[in-house]
Each structure stands twice: as C-alpha cells, then as structure tokens.
C-alpha cells in the first residue's frame, strides 16, 4: 500500500496548477522567462524567484474557462510582495474583460511580505478591491486553501471576500497566525506549539463548521478540482442587502460563541454530537455532520 493521492498539501504551486487544469490548457501570463522578480529583495540580500512566488494565467477546468493564480508557499511563505500582488491584481482585472466562468485563487500565504511592507500592503488593498470588482461584474471568485502556510493576514480577508472557499482539513484560515497571537496575548491565551489547538481554532474543519468554508475536501488535488468545478459560474450576490444580512449574521455569531476558549466549545454550541471526536473524523464522516445543502439553504 502507498498513498496514491496527489497531495495538494505536498505539491508546488505549479504541480497544483497541472492537476487542477485540463491537460495542456494552461497559458501563463508573465512567465518566469520574463524574470519579473522583486525589485526590493536583492537590496536586502534575499534571493528572488523568477515568478515572484505566484504563477498566474488562463486555463480550463473540466472544459470551462478560468483565470487562475497559484501562490508558491515554499518561496517566502507565499507572502505577497509588490510584483506578486500586481500579478494577482492584473489577473483579476483581466477577468472583467474576458469574463471567465471563474477566477480561482490557490492561496498558500502568511500575508504581506514584510520585506516589501508598504508595497505589499498596497498590493493587498488592490487585490481586495479587484476581487470585489470582479464579483460585482458577476464573475465567481473561488479561493482554495490547503497548503503548508494556510491563509493568513491580509490574504485571509481576500479569501473571505471571495464567493466561495474550498479547504482541506490541513488548510488553515485566520487573520493572525498562532505565533503572533501567542506573542501579543501570551501563552495562556494561545499556545502556538499546541498544533492540535491551532487546527481546532483555525483549521479547515473549524472553518467549515462555522460556514466560512463552503466545502471541505480530502488532501487531494483532484478533490479540490471537483469542488472548484462545482462552484464555477455560481456567483453570490454582492448587494447591500446581502452585505447587511452577513453583518447581522456575524454579529449574532459573536454573541452566540462569546467566551468560547476552544473550537471544541464552539462545535458543542453548534450542536455537533461528540465534538471532541471531530478532529479525528475522516472527511466523509465529517461532512455527514453537516446539514444537507437543502437545509443549509434555509
């Protein structure tokens, strides 16, 4: 026996793209041969990457046209620098012209690249604005999270601004990282070494149970592909009414789970049977805990 899965978690950005897109369909924009590398890193004595840590381009998923960006988590933790950010923003802006069935963002990032602080922060704002513009134009934006770095910082806000989020249980989604919380609030508040706690409060299963992720899939590129294909061309409304409803829902959630110290307590209040068992459940058993799509729609 050996794991025959094509692990999404293990794969590089380019291998994820190869597994996500129909064979031979990927056409890269600003490819590595153009050497659009960071103008900031050499001054700091840090090596650059020929694609600045993100591959962007067009391709097809199950025959349907998409634009896609894949962050390389192995390069500077997938952090967003000036060029990296501009490539994602440019890709999103192109969607306004070509109107694909979806823009797919394979996120694997700690957030802003601190070495390029201001440029990175500006890039984050530009990406955020572009995501909302694309959604406003009626094009679906889908985020996928299942890499080593999870999705943190400004990019976590970008992810939550998308129409849909597909996660694996290995994926993590949160604004502040575990180490940051521990540093700021103290180890009594959050022990970043307790990785089981990290996943109970930031991991894919927690995000799915809270309704922030729309699908929880096994750590398999094919599973991501299937889930992403199912969300193509299914935009969510981005009207004032929809935003007000979301705001009200989040306010109610804050009240409902006030005082919870651990994901397990949240799951208990959600009415999950045997909440302590959740981390060890297989994906099918876990998804069986969730309401059916019909119930969820109510």
């Amino acid at each position, binding site marked *: 026996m050996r794991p025959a899965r094509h692990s999404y978690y293990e794969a*590089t950005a380019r291998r994820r793209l190869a597994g996500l897109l129909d064979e031979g369909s990927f056409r890269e924009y600003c490819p590595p041969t153009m050497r659009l590398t960071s103008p900031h890193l050499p001054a700091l004595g840090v*090596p650059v990457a*020929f694609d600045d840590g993100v591959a962007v381009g067009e391709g097809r998923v199950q025959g349907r046209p998409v634009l896609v960006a894949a962050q390389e988590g192995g390069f500077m933790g997938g952090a967003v620098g000036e060029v990296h950010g501009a490539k994602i923003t440019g890709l999103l802006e192109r969607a306004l012209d070509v109107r694909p069935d979806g823009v797919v963002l394979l996120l694997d990032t700690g957030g802003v690249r601190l070495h390029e602080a201001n440029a990175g922060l500006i890039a984050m704002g530009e990406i955020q604005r572009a995501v909302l513009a694309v959604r406003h134009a009626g094009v679906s934006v889908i985020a996928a999270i299942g890499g080593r770095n999870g999705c943190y910082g400004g990019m976590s806000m970008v992810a939550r601004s998308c129409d849909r989020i597909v996660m694996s249980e290995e994926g993590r989604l949160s604004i502040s990282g575990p180490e940051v919380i521990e540093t700021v609030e103290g180890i009594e508040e959050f022990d970043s070494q307790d990785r089981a706690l990290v996943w109970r409060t930031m991991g894919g299963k927690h995000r799915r149970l809270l309704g922030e992720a729309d699908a929880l899939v096994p750590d398999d590129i094919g599973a991501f592909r299937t889930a992403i294909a199912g969300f193509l061309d299914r935009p969510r409304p981005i009207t004032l009414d929809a935003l007000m409803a979301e705001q009200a829902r989040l306010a109610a959630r804050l009240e409902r789970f006030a005082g919870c110290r651990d994901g397990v307590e949240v799951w208990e209040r959600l009415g999950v049977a045997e909440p302590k068992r959740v981390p060890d459940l297989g994906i099918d058993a876990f998804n069986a805990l969730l309401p059916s799509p019909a119930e969820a729609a109510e």
Partner: protein
Amino acid sequence: MEHLEFDIAGWAGVNPARDHVLVGVVGSGNLEVMIERAELAGRCAVAIDTSIHGFAPTWRRVVEDFLARHRLGDVRVSINDGGATPAVVGLRLDQAAAEYTGGVR
C-alpha cells in the same frame, strides 16, 4: 547574496523537448533552476544567485559535471539559490535536464 556567472563549453546537437523549464522552489536549503534554449554557438551560459557566499569553485564543479552528464549545449541555466547543498543542487539540475530533454518519466 553572491552573483556568479560561468560560460562553459557545451555539446552540440541537443534537441530539447521544450523551450524552457522551471524546476524547484527558492526556499531555505532549496533552489529553482530554469533552463532556456539559447543560440550560444553550442556554449552554456550559467547565472547563479546564491544566498551563501564563498562557494564559487564548488558551484563551477557541480555545474560542469551536470552539463557533461547530460551533454547539454546552447542553453542558458539560471539558478536562484536559498542555500541548497550540492546534493540538492545536483538533484534539481537533473530533474530540470530530464524535463528539458524530454527524458522525464
């Protein structure tokens, strides 16, 4: 950072399967290797940016052995290195060459 450039005699008559390949990721102890087809009268132009100083002779030996192993010519080999050991460098170079020449499984 240290920037190294080597111009090395190569082998003629290599028919690449692709115009360019990119292999590996720039991370701690890791590197990316890009091989591009180039009209260089059979020679090989190698450019390396590495985060570790003082290993120029070692790089030269590693790259020369690699080019000889795969009998490459008319190529531009570009490397961004995050401090990989020669073992990892050799592995990545071989992977890049396999993809470039179509010898990949």
